[in-house]
């Protein structure tokens, strides 16, 4: 049960060694830097040191209570990332698959609109623009 914020890449396979031992179900989600325009170089991700770690641990603990998880892990990167690199992962372990799936989905919805990360897209000429928050991400939270 842990949350990490880091600049370096991670290997989601390696992160799962020993994760959720004894659980009936483990669900993992990994998000990658996506190039929607075909011209994006990458992303710059800013965060709020201190608050970010606290928020991720709070959401993880809340998901564990709510879905009766036996284990959870959140990793989120910050700094400069190239297209195709992994940005973040969420893993949840529970006795049954539905709880593990729902907890991972719940955590993703919270992370998208409540964890203090801000993305900036770096364009083909090296200039960059902040990514606006999506109403759909906020609306997704209302499901819970």
């Amino acid at each position, binding site marked *: 049960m842990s949350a990490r914020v880091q600049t370096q890449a991670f290997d989601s396979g390696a992160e799962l060694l020993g994760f959720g031992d004894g659980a009936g179900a483990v669900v993992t989600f990994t998000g990658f830097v996506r190039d929607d325009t075909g011209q994006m170089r990458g992303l710059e991700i800013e965060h709020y040191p201190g*608050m970010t770690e606290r928020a991720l641990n709070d959401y993880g603990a809340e998901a564990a209570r709510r879905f009766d998880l036996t284990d959870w892990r959140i990793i989120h990167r910050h700094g400069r990332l190239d297209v195709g690199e992994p940005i973040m992962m969420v893993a949840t372990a529970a006795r049954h698959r539905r709880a593990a799936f729902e907890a991972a989905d719940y955590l993703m919805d919270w992370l998208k609109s409540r964890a203090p990360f801000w993305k900036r897209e770096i364009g083909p000429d090296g200039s960059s623009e*902040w990514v606006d*928050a999506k109403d759909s991400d906020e609306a997704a939270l209302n499901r819970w």
Partner: protein
Amino acid sequence: MEVLYFAWLRERIGQPREQIETSAATVRELVTELAARDEWHAAAFADMAAVRCALDQQLVDLDSPLGNAREVAFFPPMTGG
């Protein structure tokens, strides 16, 4: 108290943090004080629908009392992951 700015609020104001003295009772009153400082602060706080706030690293709404908070942070809606 310590005031922190992130993402485009930091860029508009031109610094990541500042130390201020205030008698504001709520976050909203503090914003009014800050916005009156100069054109950069005014630009950062021009659209409050696009500003989020945390007091001592907990998300709060704009009408929250400042209480004894030591650190207040302003930032745009989050876009993580």
